[in-house]
């Protein structure tokens, strides 16, 4: 990879890329091999060895662990098979009182807790807030994304899953 481009993408991942360069990146033609470039940057950042197959959140990745493809947090915590909703293996805080809601919405009007609650899905190991749901009490937990991992690698990237 071009060294300047690598540095640019590292800054992009860290949110440090200056706006003029970011704007250029937005307006330019998209590079066809971006996926692998960004994957390499993520792989370099994490402290564990499993191969990253797909980022699915700010701190969540699908990784190859033996013969399994599992969801893993930046900190290393493992949530299990990527085809199951990782949220079910998280710990959660539910804000369902006005007092709890107003703590994160100071000076603002907030939802009626009898109509809506805030669910915070947290990594049991590092305590990072991974996803927030705003939904009515009783609403099933949403499975945000189940990628067609095999199809993506085979049909779109034209490489076997887990290679390169």
């Amino acid at each position, binding site marked *: 990879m071009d060294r300047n481009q690598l540095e640019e993408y590292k800054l992009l991942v860290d949110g440090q890329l200056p706006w003029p360069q970011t704007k250029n990146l937005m307006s330019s033609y998209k590079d066809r091999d971006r996926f692998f470039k960004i994957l390499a940057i993520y792989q370099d950042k994490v402290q564990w060895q499993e191969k990253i197959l797909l980022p699915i959140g700010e701190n969540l990745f699908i990784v190859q662990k033996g013969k399994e493809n599992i969801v893993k947090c930046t900190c290393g915590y493992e949530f299990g098979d990527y085809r199951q909703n990782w949220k079910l293996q998280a710990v959660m805080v*539910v804000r369902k009182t006005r007092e709890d809601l107003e703590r994160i919405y100071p000076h603002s009007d907030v939802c009626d807790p009898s*109509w809506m609650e805030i669910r915070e899905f947290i990594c049991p190991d590092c305590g*990072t807030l991974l996803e*927030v749901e705003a939904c009515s009490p009783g609403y099933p937990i949403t499975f945000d994304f189940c990628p067609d991992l095999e*199809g993506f690698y085979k049909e779109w990237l034209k490489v076997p899953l887990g290679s390169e």
Partner: protein
Amino acid sequence: MTKTDTMVNLRKRLEESESLLAMTGCYDGITNLECREQDPLKFETIHMKLRASCVSAREIARRISASPGVREVGEMVAALYTPEGDAIAISNGIMVHVHTMSRFIKWMIKNDYQDDPGINPGDIFANNDAFIGTVQVPDVMDVVPIYHEGTLVGWAGAVCHELEAGGITPGGDVALAQERFGEGLFVCAEKIGLNDKIRRDYIIRCERNLRMPIYWILDEQAKVAACFNMRDRVLELIDEIGIDFYQKISKEFIEEGRRTQLARVRQLTIPGKYRANTFYGHVTKGKPGFQPLGDPDWLYSIPLQMDIQLDGKIVLDFEGAQPWGYHSMNCTPAGMDGGMFVTLTQHMNFEGLVNDGAWLATQLKLPEGTWTNPDSEFCATATSWALLLPAYGAFQRMLSRGFLARGFLEEVFVGQVNSPMIEMGGISQYGKPFGIAHFECAAAGSGALAIKDGLDTAYVGWNPESDMGNIEIWELDMPMVYLGRSILPNSGGAGKYRGGNAFMSTWVINKSPEVRIVTSEHSSRVFDNAGMCGGYPAPTCQMHRVVRNSNISQRADARKPLVHSTGLDQNELTMNLEGDHQIIEGPHITAPMKAGDIFTHSYNGGGGYGDPLERDPILVLDDIIQGQSSRVHGENIHGVRFKGSIEDTTLEIDLPGTMAARKQLKDERLQKAIPVSDWFENERGKVIEGSFAPEVVKMYRAAMNLSDDFSDEFRTFWQLSDSFAFSEPKQGEDKHG
């Protein structure tokens, strides 16, 4: 009259074109892009010419219009179509309507307009019926056929959003309409002009059925001028390149647009199944003017599933949506198409050929009988954006999950939000009857990005040019004077990158004995947006703070400071003004106001991205200094600790204190958090008992009645029996099950 085409049966041609698409998978059966292959530069140049003619026609029209909505905010779009009604090229502006106009043209063709009332050179057709092809009554569209030597070679079309529609309440988005019959003046695929001239009887009908006909009528002139201008440019181009080549290349543009969309999806996203949901809550109980057909208070869930197929096709499914209701927020399939189209133009088709080809590469599944596809054409759609915007905000988040996974972090966007509108009417400052929609709402806060904060007061999804307009222009058109426009601190959702903040306006009613103010798109009891990857939703839109019979004139006479906003603690009005103070939740539907009364109105901020404890403390400090957020916000949510004070400009970050506070907040999270399995057991009991607010139970019951898939999924998640259902409402608890 020019000799008209009698050889081509338009209806048969349209059916043939649709059949060719079904058979070949390519638009109009075009499997090879021969013009593009022969001369790619010529291909691009000709499309650019057509697009330029649409853009310049729109600019011409904006200078004819009398409406600040069109002139200031740019609530207009112009486009060129094939004879079958498929968009070839479009201008900037409210691109929602590129495909809604396409539906309008196709509707006329399918209803044999060629025979009666006839489609002739010089004809002008108009429509604002959403079941034919638009989103809502104020979106009035005009199209003119383009003839070349007696043959129909295309259509030119333009849409303006009207600021007054003559409905049950003044303004364009008639929030109180509960059926079609209160929405205002309908023009249903009507021939409103002949021989390049709008009919006088149509103008008279407009003059006598609208509160402010000057906007509508001059917008008609503006749109027709735009259409004529585009028509002339097309005929010039045909003279240059020949009719056969024009017809061939214009269809190739659409097929190229379809292929580009598929390729873009394959380039930017990941195939798979994406899910999202959002909600909308409506509160009108006890408000004047409410009609008895529907429930006064209701809650809608808006679940979405997006499947990205291996060929690049996006299938967006609204299974589990709520039923249509006796309110103005329903949407027709045309409106749903429009929402999809305008979202795609911003997120995927920002280069290349933007036309109906992109729409052909997508599929919407809209369950019949829901608000997305009502099975009664009596239902109202006057404020369908109230549900459309949250729905397509969720679509943006699903697309963004794909961008994130593919490594295109610069394209990740937490999505658009509702931006509550003000409609008003009564007696103007000039002593005349008036009616207007205030379009400063075209500048809400945007959702955050994965790499930076969202835009403050600068984005709405429905008009990508997003502009609040100048205060002085709005003051010319309504009997209200601004006391202030202010950033609403903390109004963006918190996150590593926060959502864009919203603003609020404060007015004093001026020189008028009667102003009726009605607002819409206020989801006050639930968040109708969301965050992403650990970011929070933006707060619910601020309630209206109002002071009737205020003493502001006396304060002005005494040269005391005026009030410019409600302030951080929402108490600036109560502390500084005498009068009758009111706080109004949800839409502002009250008795008329008068000179000297104070009215405030707020817009929405965007959702946040990422864990707020990962936000750079410098950004937190900067927000406090800039008035974008409060110190307590920075302390509670971001765990930043400060030294000094904002008042004496000594505020700075206590870095060791911040690190310790953040660790403590994470520890507290983990102490407070419970395994999802524990939560499940407790919540399942509540589901079985149905121990939720009546509006929540009704929402579940309605979704389960309409959708077997939703029912199955709900029962499976909660491990309930196949026969589980929420009990029916008790008498008097529920109006329409």
